[in-house]
């Protein structure tokens, strides 16, 4: 066994852990962004519906 043995084991272990972190962080970030996007679309739809109602209000 020579000097790089511990280093190699450390690198492999840390890479494994960071890969898992990257994967989970990407999933969490994507879920949060999807929620933001959905909220943004809902807000736009509501604004559009309100505008439509205002422009095409046919009530007497």
């Amino acid at each position, binding site marked *: *066994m*020579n*000097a*790089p*043995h*511990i*280093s190699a*084991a*450390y*690198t492999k*272990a*840390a890479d*494994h*852990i*960071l890969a*898992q*972190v*990257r994967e*989970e*962080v990407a999933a*969490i*970030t994507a*879920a*949060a*962004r999807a*929620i*933001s996007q*959905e*909220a*943004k679309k809902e*807000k736009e739809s509501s604004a559009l519906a309100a505008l439509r109602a205002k422009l095409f209000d046919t009530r007497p």
Partner: protein
Amino acid sequence: MNGAHEHLPPVAKAERELVGGSEERVHNEHELVAASLNAKLALNEAMQAAPGRAEELEVLRKRLDSLITDANEALKTLGAVAAVGDVLEGARTKSTEQSGLVDPQTLVENPDKAEQLLEGVIAITENVSDDPAHRALSNEAKAALAEIPRTKQTGRRLALTIAERVAKICLDLAGLGAVSHALDLIEDCTRVFMENRRAATA
């Protein structure tokens, strides 16, 4: 790990390792912080955009917190075990004076490194089941570790007596032939981390 230091003479390379930790290990900590910040930013934006979905976002936030806590703990243990492992391997392949890895004078200027080495010793010795020599060394490392915070408060220098004690503990561990235990523990850290994450995301 040593790629960036390979041009340095052996003692300077060892001191660089001892003083600053390897660049790779520091880089890993930075990557963790950056990843965490990006996700927190996305969560905060979502919280503002969709306050009605706060419960759902809270679940994501807790998952992120547990992920970062688990990863920090695993990387901290890995770093400590690898730091001691470097010393153990150095002691096996050359004399302590040549390796320069446990020079008490260098530890005097680096209480954080001394602390990391002791944490590594404790992690390794506690992972060896029921061996009196390992248990005694673990107790000695814990006692030495308890001395460090007091010393730190007096100007970030370690008393030479404590630095010598830390160096001796590392050498005593080397005498117990603990490299294989260090390697086992490095594997265990990854396995425990992955098991925790599987449980957290199930």
